[in-house]
């Protein structure tokens, strides 16, 4: 073996007897004639001895620890964890306002938090939804990232959530209410309904809240394991506590919405299907359920969810990581983040080709109108806007004018 073929790694493996026999004799032959490599081996050996001396001081367990007992303990732990995870996951869905194609929004909301005003005592920043903006995601890049069907993303989000999340307010089972006055009383804000129409069902949903502690290393390792070690989590997030609060809100159903209202009412607070009906754009088909028809209009109202975070977190920086994770190039992500006020904008990612969208005005407020582009579906709309701090989502069937007219009938 030539001197130039030998490197520190081979010499180190030689010391550890981790080379195959052919390599060993080649290395030995070279070592006999090369003083420099002999010295190198000696130095490597000294370092190794130093580490051995140090690490051997550390305790370790004997072989005997009983694996059967450990397995039984693990099974119990897993049962508990699965039970509590369900409720965290439900909160996440609730936060994202929708399942299916829009679940991504939750991720963006939770991670794109910025300082608006420093709270006197805790220097917390608060995020409130005032606007929506829509981000088109190219399905091809999602595929190449293994993110199709949200599966990978759901897993990633699920793992981020599973680590250090505390539920600060547990959601209750949704309950039916008689009218707008009763709904307003429960929800704590003036509920508006379509004028001149009586809802087929009016449902109150309790608020919910979680807190999560961010750990730079952990988030980074999740990115690494998702094959995106090129993305770096900024160090400013380390140890930061993010609080997410979703206030209580209402859902009103008009016309024939199939079994959607009864499913909402019948569900356990821990179940997994919230709000699929609300913004059913670009994903989440519930084939086994009774379908809504074209007369169905579903309206959701809730005060803006809020996200609090330490003031030193730069939301634009985090948004860039998230956007690149979703398949944007570094340059595009950088320029997109500059166009958005991250303290007040909910970014709704939509899959290009899966749905169409446009920015519209509803009663003088900016809003986003989304439509699925699949056959049989393209006349369905989801209209989202914020009015007096209340987030509205209106789902129905019809053209743009119908959607906006319907929205203007709230009182």
């Amino acid at each position, binding site marked *: 073996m030539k001197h130039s073929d030998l*490197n*520190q*790694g*081979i*010499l*180190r*493996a030689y010391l*550890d007897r*981790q080379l195959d026999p052919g390599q060993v004799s080649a290395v030995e032959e070279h070592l006999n004639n090369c003083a420099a490599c002999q010295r190198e081996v000696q130095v*490597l050996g*000294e*370092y*190794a001895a*130093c*580490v*051995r001396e*140090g*690490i*051997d*001081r*550390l*305790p*370790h*367990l*004997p*072989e005997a*620890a009983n*694996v059967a007992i*450990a*397995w039984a*303990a*693990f099974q119990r*732990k*897993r049962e508990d*964890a699965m039970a509590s*995870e*369900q409720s965290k*996951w439900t909160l996440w869905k609730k936060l994202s306002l929708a399942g299916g194609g829009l679940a991504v929004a939750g991720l963006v909301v939770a991670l794109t938090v910025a300082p608006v005003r420093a709270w006197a005592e805790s220097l917390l920043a608060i995020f409130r939804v005032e606007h929506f903006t829509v981000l088109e995601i190219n399905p091809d890049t999602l595929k190449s990232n293994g993110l199709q069907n*949200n*599966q990978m993303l*759901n*897993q990633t989000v*699920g*793992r981020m959530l*599973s680590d250090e999340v505390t539920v600060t307010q547990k959601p209750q089972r949704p309950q039916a209410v008689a009218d707008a006055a009763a709904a307003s009383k429960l929800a704590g804000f003036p509920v508006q309904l379509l004028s001149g129409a009586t809802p087929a069902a009016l449902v109150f949903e309790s608020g919910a809240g979680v807190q999560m502690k961010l*750990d730079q*290393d*952990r988030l980074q*390792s999740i990115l690494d*394991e998702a*094959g995106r070690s090129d993305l770096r989590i900024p160090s400013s997030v380390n140890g930061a506590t993010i609080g997410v609060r979703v206030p209580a809100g209402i859902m009103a159903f008009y016309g024939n919405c199939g079994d959607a209202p009864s499913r909402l009412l019948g569900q356990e607070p821990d179940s*997994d299907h919230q709000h699929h009906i609300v913004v059913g754009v670009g994903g989440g088909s519930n084939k086994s359920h009774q379908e809504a028809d074209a007369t169905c209009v579903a309206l959701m109202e809730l005060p803006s969810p809020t996200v609090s975070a330490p003031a030193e977190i730069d939301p634009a920086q985090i948004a860039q990581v998230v956007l690149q994770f979703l398949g944007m190039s570094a340059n595009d992500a950088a320029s997109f983040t500059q166009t958005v006020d991250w303290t007040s904008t909910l970014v709704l990612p939509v899959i290009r080709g899966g749905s169409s969208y446009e920015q519209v005005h509803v009663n003088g407020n900016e809003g986003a109108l989304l439509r699925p582009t699949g056959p049989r579906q393209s006349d369905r709309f989801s209209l989202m806007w914020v009015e007096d701090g209340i987030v509205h989502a209106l789902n129905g069937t019809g053209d743009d004018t119908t959607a906006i007219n319907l929205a203007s009938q709230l009182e």
Partner: protein
Amino acid sequence: MSMAASWVEVEFEAIFREHYQRMVRVTRRVLRCDSEAEEVCAEVFLRLYRSGPGVAAGGLVGGWLYRTATRASIDALRANQRRGLEEELEGASSGQNEDSADGPLTRLLRGERIAEVRAVLARLRVEKAQILLLRYSGHSYKEIAEAMQISAASVGTMLARAEAEFSTLYERQHQLSRKTSQLETAKERR
């Protein structure tokens, strides 16, 4: 929760039985007591369970387990250090039967040396600490390559670098501790 695919229970149990003890032994080196190591390893298996069998599709499940467990234990080590928590000396120094025969001073000194080694591991980049933990717990280069997601040929290089850095920091740490204890002795005399 929507999972890609679920584990077949017997397969998951087989993986647990194959790796659990070894994982606890590796992580115990940097964690304060047996139960903390067992806790961290159980968390890692929980994560594996949640992620479904797909998590290891691109590699071997053993590699994933040791990567995740060593990382989690080093995270926990760093957290312990931030909170100023040290090895639980009483009773929990498992497996070393001669412990019980030692006097309190010997145990105290041993505790200090353990803290020194761990302080150095906590200061290394996490990958370097991981490779040292794995190698010095008897993992082969092939196993390390799987766990660290690197080629077997680069294990030697990475290990050598980690050892060099550990040695330098360890020497320095040791000198520092010695100086501190000399100062304290001097103070006591005055």
